[in-house]
């Protein structure tokens, strides 16, 4: 697509200050990727690799001990340069987020319909009667009978709660939707339904979606582009084809290997030995080096930049240095 990206994240870095231990957790370092209108970008990686932190950093919903740097361009406006008041205008109206629909993402003592209505009336977008009608529309759109809007979250099943969260997120017709592990904690059947719902909504409304997940199957099914993260950095970034069929980063390769493929059952499940690094004690070189099966001397001392292995396909690995002029995307 030759359009301009809806969201451009450039060199996003987030640190958390931990005064109690006098340490700094470098949750994100130099994260960059784009999201085009109508596109679905998958953000994958192990738990704790920074996927959720990335979303929270863009929306600036991090706690007071976080320090963010970099640029996040939404329609050419750098969100990180805005005041808190200005940022609030963007939340939900332009970028909405769907959290894991665990019991507590919705206020347990407020009726579901009221919570959705609140998102609408908060903006003064429409009068409260019209807002009520809109709430009904939204619920129907996600497959919830609109009478159930007067119920409380605990009266909904897990899948329904997730749908309700999606309905609420669409309340102000955002252009970009962040979905943070929308199917984790749901059973397989319901997972499929939720994903179908997201796809349908995307088609109908032309939404762009950033989907955070650790489930590669979901990524394969829904995403156009994939950002693979490890230890707070981007390991690889490319189209879904490139990532799945021609992964260039050793971590991505291992990740794909360890994901069970029903079409080609293997004798045993592969796994990556070791554990992800502690964000307060990061290795000086490549963050994946301690667990990498292909590491060379340089990996332990220097952190690799993102190399463009093919147009639009980037991976951060020293082994790829020879494949091009070692010129990372220029600032």
């Amino acid at each position, binding site marked *: 697509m030759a359009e301009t990206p809806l969201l451009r994240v450039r060199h996003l870095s987030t640190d958390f200050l931990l005064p109690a231990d006098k340490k700094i957790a470098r949750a994100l370092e130099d994260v960059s990727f784009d999201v085009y209108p109508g596109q679905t970008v998958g953000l994958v990686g192990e738990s704790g690799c920074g996927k959720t932190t990335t979303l929270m950093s863009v929306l600036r919903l991090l706690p*007071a001990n976080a320090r*963010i740097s970099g640029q996040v361009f939404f329609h050419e406006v750098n969100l990180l340069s805005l005041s808190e008041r200005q940022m609030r205008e963007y939340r939900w109206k332009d970028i909405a987020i769907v959290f894991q629909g665990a019991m507590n993402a919705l206020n347990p003592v407020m009726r579901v319909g009221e919570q959705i209505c609140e998102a609408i009336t908060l903006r003064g977008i429409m009068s409260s009667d019209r807002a009520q009608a809109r709430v009904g529309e939204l619920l129907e759109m996600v497959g919830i009978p609109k009478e159930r809007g007067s119920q409380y979250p605990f009266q909904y099943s897990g899948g329904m709660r997730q749908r309700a969260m999606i309905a609420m997120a669409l309340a102000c017709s955002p252009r970009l939707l962040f979905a943070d592990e929308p199917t984790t904690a749901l059973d397989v059947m319901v997972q499929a339904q939720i994903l179908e719902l997201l796809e349908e909504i995307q088609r109908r409304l032309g939404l762009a979606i950033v989907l955070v997940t650790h489930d590669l199957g979901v990524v394969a099914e829904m995403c156009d582009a994939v950002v693979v993260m490890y230890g707070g950095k981007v390991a690889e970034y490319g189209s879904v084809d490139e990532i799945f069929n021609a992964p260039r980063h050793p971590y991505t390769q291992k990740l794909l290997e360890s994901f069970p493929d029903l079409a080609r059952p293997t004798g045993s499940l592969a796994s990556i030995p070791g554990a992800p690094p502690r964000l307060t004690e990061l290795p000086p070189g490549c963050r994946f080096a301690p667990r990498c099966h292909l590491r060379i001397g340089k990996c332990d001392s220097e952190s690799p930049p993102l190399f463009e292995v093919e147009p639009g396909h980037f991976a951060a690995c020293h082994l790829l240095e020879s494949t091009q002029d070692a010129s990372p995307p220029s600032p």
Partner: protein
Amino acid sequence: MRESWLLLQRNLSDFWKTFRRNQMGLIGAFLVGTALLLAIFAPLLTSISPMETVRTADGRALTFAPPSVHGPLGTDDAGHDIWSQVAFGARISLVVGFLAGFIAMFVGSLLGILAGYFGGWVDTLIMRVTDVLLVIPDLPLMLVLVAAIRQLNLKISPLVILILVIGLLYWTSTARLVRSQVLSIKERQFVARARAIGAGHGHIIRKHILPQIMPLIVANTVLILSTAILIESGLAFLGLGDPTQPSWGTMLNFAFDRNAISNGAWWFYLPPGLAIVWVSLGCVLLGNVLEEMLNPRLTGHHLEGEARVLSASLKSAEESSEEVSHG
């Protein structure tokens, strides 16, 4: 089995490290420690006995003398030195408070273990008793109990009655705490293993469960102590203590009944009360810190403030025109 005790030991040394870092705990320890020292070394810290009457030059009792006249804390309406009353009163207040607290701890732990470990009707029975006990207002119940027991004219010291009554009514929080801990421990692997190899109940309780709940019991007991001391002072104030062995509460009873207020003798009613606050506060601080260390609290909450954006990153769109794009 040794694992459980080793766990306890390791916890204790971690505990000591964290404890020293925590200021509140140190303050609490200081408060309690000084009170204990006062009680123990009372005779060495006072120049006259609390029963002695201080006399003026012409032999009359020096009543209601302010600290400027007779130090350090003046005299009461009978000419007795208040500082020594406070010092020796510490013994009574602390002993009664501690003993009552320990009885509460003991009864509570026992019932908690029984309820948690055996479950079933034992548990239900104990829990119902706890519920009933909690709803009945504590002071009126204690007052009528003490009144009734005194009626029996048994030749026991009023202080013993106080200790028993307080101890037998304040075990509920310990019982609940212990019970829920035992319930969670019971679920764990090593208990099932021990049972499988035929270990008896007593053995399991002693070797596996007790070591793990001890720290919590200790923390809870310290908190109970603060309540016990407060309650004792209240009951003594109402006249249920032993006038011949005055605690701080009894001193306040004297002060109130003998018109210290209208005589403006603040040195009579201020010090004993401050002493009670001193010790009670110490126990609360200590107990809170102990509990916190064994049950760490959550971190912050979502409305605590905004993350800071570092100013170096405030570039505009034009300045940053690279494409890391994807079609």
